């Protein structure tokens, strides 16, 4: 049982880590925590010329 729990925990941690690395835009998360006057501006565009 302990062995299963260990691998389950490891698997969950690995998946969570990969998700945080691949899918979270940390630049934006950190930017949102800056005071408004120091924040970078988010500029939206769509892929048309």
């Amino acid at each position, binding site marked *: 049982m302990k062995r299963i729990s260990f691998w389950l925990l490891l698997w969950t941690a690995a998946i969570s880590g990969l998700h945080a690395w691949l899918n979270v835009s940390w630049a934006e998360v950190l930017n949102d925590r800056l005071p408004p006057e120091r924040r970078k501006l988010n500029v*939206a565009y*769509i*892929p*048309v010329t």
Partner: protein
Amino acid sequence: MTDYIARHALDGNLFIPKMFQGFPEIKEALISNRVQAGFLVAPMAIALRSQGVPIKVVYLGHRYGSAVVVQKDGPVHSVADLRGRTIAIPSRFSDERLIMLRALQKNGIAPSEVKMVEMSPADVAGALAAKAIDAFSMGEPFPSQAEMSGFGRVLFQAREYWPDYMSCVLVVRQDVIDGRPEAVQTLVDGIARSGLWLEKGKPYREYAAEFVGRYYFNQPPALLKWALTRPLDRVMYAPLSPRKRDFDLVRDLMIESGLLDKKLAFEDYVDVRFAEHSQIKTAWKFEPGTE
């Protein structure tokens, strides 16, 4: 464009470019302050302002670059043949819809004689190929995509019915205009310089197609090369200053087609100060292939 500006502006990294797949999503992000600036179709920007959303148009994204495309071997050979057909547009609040209405009107067709459906720009070429729609009115590179893939034919370019046609405009939230005007000016200056750089000739446009296609749009560079160079004035990047007569026309067409219920003054939705200050700028000093 914004990324290049951010990297090369003297003020350091000021912008984070965020790609969306449709204009309605950008509209929501602007309202909720998830983005502070963005490229919108002009009628949507005017409509938002008329509804009290605190934004202003400060610059244009480009001129021309929209076309109506039909099936290559299909039965539509003139605007008159569009009677009874299904036409995809990016949004009810788009210049692409207004240009369609203008073309229909000039050919004596009532808007009720065609069926217009809203569709995400990225989906229209596939829908035309699958014959789910008979035509679409859209900005580049989607007309080029249909042409290049061999199933679409340009029925007309927007400029044929609207000589000073414009579509995407840069809007900025009013709190940013008031609180950080220097950042807005940097953004506008950068777009102006990028536009001048693109207008330097074919090698510049081809180089832009390579890096924008690969790193920003996630589209084949060959497609963007087609859109930017066949011919070179298919999409123009100068002059991009917002002009009153262009916006008055959009506003009046919106009123005619029921998108707007009152005459909004130009100054209510456009702030020309940043465009006026950017007029002395020169193109980026950067030669294709050197970075």
